[in-house]
Every structure is written in C-alpha cells, then in structure tokens.
C-alpha cells in the first residue's frame, strides 16, 4: 500500500486547500444557505417522481375538470389551462433545468478545454488561429448567438443545449490557454520535452491536468447563467417544446392566461430566480474565496 500513502501525501496540500476553501465558503451565512438550497434542488430533481403530487401531470395527463384553479390545499401552485398541477410541473422542471444546464456546460467544456490546451501548449500559428476564432465568437452577446443558432438548427431542447455550448466554449478556451501558456515554461514540462515526449502527449498528459482548477470554478459559476439562457430560449419558443414542463416554456404559455391566473407565471418564475440566484451566489463566493486578493480569514 505504499503507493496509496504516497498518493494521499501528494494530495494532502490540495485536500487541505479544498477544506480551507470550503470552510471559508461555508462561514458566510448567505453562501451556506445557497449550498443547502442547491443540495435541496438536486434532491428535488433526482426524486421528482416521488415528490410530485401528480407525477402524471408533468407530461401528458390532462385534468379538464380543474382548469386554471388558483392555489389550494389540493393544488399548492394552482393548475394550468389543461388542469395539470403546477407544483408537479415545476418540480419536474427542476430536473430539466439542472440536467440541460449541466449537459450544456459539459459540452462547452468538451469543446473549449482541448482547444485552449492546444492553443496554449503549442503556441505559434495554431495559438493565433484558435484565439482569433474565439475572439469572433466572443464578439456576439452570448444569448444572441444561441438564439440564432437554435433557430437555424431547429427549435428543440437538444439543439438549445448545443447552441448554448457553441456560444459558451470560447470563455473556457481563454482561461485554459492562459493557464497552459504559463505552465508550458515550467520545469517538468521542459523535462518532458527534453526526453522527447510527443507534443500532443505533453499537452494532454502534462499541461492539461494542471489547468483544470480555474476552469471548473468558472464552469460552476456559469451554471446559473446557463439555466437562465435555456429558460430564455424556451420562452422565445426555441428550446423545450410543449408538453415539456420546462420553466421558461411554462412562463411563455402562461402569457395567454396570466392576467387572470397570477399563479401560472409566478411559480415557475420564482423557481428560476431561486435556482439561478443560489448558483450565482455560490459562484461569487467561490471566486472571492479563491482569489488571493479578496480572500479573508
């Protein structure tokens, strides 16, 4: 078991660092509440079928006897124009939002990280080409490119995720490239180069693993924004399609009825606000804790 204790030895500083950061993050009351809410949201998403009072209402079942009922003990969040329980639909919406946001960010990382590592690791012409391409992508307001892209790919949730990933990757490329450029000149990379390790394996085996930390932080900060973007696309009719209980889509359909059914648009909106807010608060907290300039013990 020698290797195991060696392994934990080398990991020790980063474990200590992580625990310290977590302690600092957790000390702030607002951030602690946010952490708890995120855990709750994940639980709601995972156990949606068990929590939702009317799981069938989430997708296809209709209930014409109880159309547009205001909130009551039976339907806590009221019902929609087909008599479906809004609470159940909002609960299932949590699942959709968290899942799509994670996939979209994941795809953006999959595109952005390797490109950034190649740009920073190789340098020269390749660097120049990749970075000029990211410049062009970054010259669109993020939501705009996603709107145009999903309109042309065809409006559905899968394409919405893809469009978000395509408008989001340049941010990660920039971060990774910056990291890679500085790591490229470190001793261990020079050593690897000196013993003739191929360029690509230097980039992916030696440089890339050392660039992850900041990009993971950035990605966790982006989750809130991505959830908001998905809701916005669905609101415009470019994301989820009925009868999917996606929050943005719920608000979009509510527009026909909301002046006489306040609950219809209010509850899905509150769900979006809470989710995006807690992710943004945590993101802010993580940045503050990890940035030596603002870190305070």
């Amino acid at each position, binding site marked *: 078991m020698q290797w195991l204790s060696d392994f934990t030895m080398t990991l020790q500083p980063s474990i200590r660092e992580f625990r310290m950061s977590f302690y600092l993050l957790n000390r702030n009351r607002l951030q602690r509440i946010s952490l708890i809410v995120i855990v709750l949201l994940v639980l709601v998403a995972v156990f949606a079928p068990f929590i939702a009072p009317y799981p069938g209402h989430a997708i296809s079942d209709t209930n014409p006897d109880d159309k547009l009922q205001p909130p009551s003990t039976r339907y806590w969040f009221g019902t929609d124009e087909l008599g479906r329980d809004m609470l159940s639909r909002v609960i299932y919406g949590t699942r959709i939002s968290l899942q799509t946001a994670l996939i979209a960010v994941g795809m953006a990382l999959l595109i952005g990280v390797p490109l950034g590592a190649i740009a920073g690791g190789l340098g020269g012409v390749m660097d120049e080409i990749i970075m*000029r*391409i990211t*410049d*062009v*992508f970054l*010259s*669109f*307001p993020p*939501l*705009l*490119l996603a*709107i*145009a*892209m999903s*309109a*042309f*790919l065809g*409006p559905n949730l899968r394409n919405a995720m893809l469009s978000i990933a395509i408008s989001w990757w340049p941010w990660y490329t920039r971060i990774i490239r910056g990291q890679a450029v500085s790591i490229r000149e470190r001793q261990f990379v020079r050593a690897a180069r000196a013993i003739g390790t191929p360029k690509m394996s230097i980039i992916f085996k030696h440089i890339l693993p050392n660039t992850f930390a900041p990009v993971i932080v950035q990605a966790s900060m982006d989750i*809130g924004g991505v959830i*908001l973007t998905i*809701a*916005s696309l669905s*609101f*415009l*009719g*470019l994301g989820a399609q009925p009868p999917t209980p996606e929050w*943005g889509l719920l*608000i*979009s359909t*509510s*527009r026909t009825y*909301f*002046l006489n059914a*306040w609950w219809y*648009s*209010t509850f*899905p*909106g509150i769900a*979006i*606000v809470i989710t*995006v*807010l807690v992710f*943004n*608060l945590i993101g*802010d907290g993580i940045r503050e804790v990890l940035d030596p*300039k603002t870190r305070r013990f």
Partner: protein
Amino acid sequence: MKRFILRRLLLGIVVMLGVAFITFFLTRVIPSDPAAKWVGPRATPEQIAKARIDLGLDQPLHVQFYKYMGDLLQGNLGSSLRTRRPIMLELKENLPATIELVLISTIAAVFIGIPLGVISANRKDQWIDHLSRLFSVGVVSLPTFWVGLILQLLFFRTLHIFPLGGQLSTEIKLTMEIPKITGFLMFDSLVTGNFRIFVDALWHIVLPGITIGLYPVGLVARMTRSALLEILNEDYITAARSYGLSERIVLWSYALKNSIGSTSTVVALSIGYTLVNTFLTESIYSWPGIGSYIASAVIGLDYPAIMGVTIFSAFSYVILNLVADIIIALDPRVRA
C-alpha cells in the same frame, strides 16, 4: 495613441468579417437544405427551387460567400418571408422604439448603477453595501421576461397605475396626429411641443424601462464596486487622504476618474446585453421595436428576418466594444 486606435479599428473590421462568416455558416452550411429553410416551412417546391438560385446555392461556397459579403456591404439583408419587404427597411422602422428603451436603461445604468457602486465600495461591508450587492446579484439572476409579466400583474392588473403595453394609449393614437421627424416618439413629441403625447409616451415606457434597466444597473453597480475597491487600496488615494482632502473629493473625483476604463467597458457590454434582452421583453409589452420583430420572426420561422436582426445586433455590439476600447485608450497609462 493614433496607432492604437488604428490597430483596434483594423481588429474590429477583422472581427466583423468573422461575424459575417459565422452568420453565413449558420444560414448556408448548417441547415440540411438552406433553401427550404430560407423560404419557410409552407413553401412550394418551385419557391424552394427559386430560392436556391436567388441565394446562389448552386454555386461553390466561396462564390456564395463573396456574393453574401457584397450584399451585406450594400446593406442588403434579403426580404422577410412574412411581409416580403426588405429586412433593412423593417429594421429601420423598428429601431427607434428599441433605441429609446436601450437609451433609458443605459442612462439608468450610468446614473443609478455607478453611484450605487461607489457608495457600496465606500461603505464596504456595511448594510448599504450588503443591500446593493444583494441587489446586483439578484437582478442578474432575474429572467427579464418574467419580471415583465410580474410588473404587469402588479402595476396594471392590481394597482391600475401603468398601462399594459404599447407606446401610446389607443385614444391618443386615434385622436391626435403623431409627429414623425426622427422616428423617436418621445423626442419628436417633445420638439413639436406635443406634451400630451410626450407624457403618455413617458407613462408607457416606465414598465418596459424598469424591466430592461434592472440588469444593466446591477451589472454596472457590481463592476464599479469591484473596480473602486481595487483603486481605493492604491497609494495615491492614501496620499490624497493624507493631504486632508474630503472623502467626497477623494471618492468621486480621484478614485472614480481612474475607474472610467473598466466602467466604460461594462457600460458598452451592458448596452449589448440590453439589446438582446429587448428580444425577451418587447413582445410582452407589445413594444414596436426589433425585439418584438425577432420574437415574431422566431414564431413565424422567418429565417431571413432572424438573421438580419442577429447581424445587426452583433455588429452594434462589436462597434460598442470598439468605442469602449478607444475611450480606454484615452487614458495615458495604456497608450504604450
């Protein structure tokens, strides 16, 4: 400095070329049958065949791109599927209403956001700082379209204070002659002395203005705060304070002046975001701007119109960033 501006201008042109290339790629290469996409889902085979020739899809890609760029440079964005009118013309008609909204939110961002950020930085970790930070994180977490609906529920349905939507009341639209000089309703009614129209227009812009303005105010406040916090730690601020200058002068004149670079970048950024946020807001308020235009284009699958608005917005965003960079370049410290 001249060299910097020249280089920045050149870079701006390169970026715009890239933007044009991406939009070209989006419209011509990604769809499996671009011609079918371009004429819409209800087109006949003859219309599709005609579009194929009109768009030059039978020619090699580089020839297509050349022609596409030529059209763009002449301001030709094709014509709308729904109205069959040139998109450039429709954009021009819809633009003033949107610019009014964006202008109002930018004014709010500058005159509310910056002071909020300054006060927040000055009173770091006091209750007013906590409040303003919570506000700035809060408003960037709000879905704009939902805020619009909630404001309507509150101020139209429940309190009956503000109108539901539109730029003017119906009775004014029907009984009075609406002045049309520049197309900017509020400006036109003011210079022609139509105060009733002006007041009515002002009344109508309140809710959409708040909806659109919250985000930039929060963003600018947040950025101003963090820029100032860094500056307030610098030696020259300590020096100014030790001269016995009042805190007000130190803060608003010494410190704020040096944050002008980052602030102008954020303002430019927030104008771009605001422009895109109108896509989500205007249709809620039946506001006759390009936001409503693209929202209905999306529903009607009017691809040329969607593309037209996209190109226009992306170009304005590039230009805004260019202007912000040039403002920064006026700072002698970055002139090198």
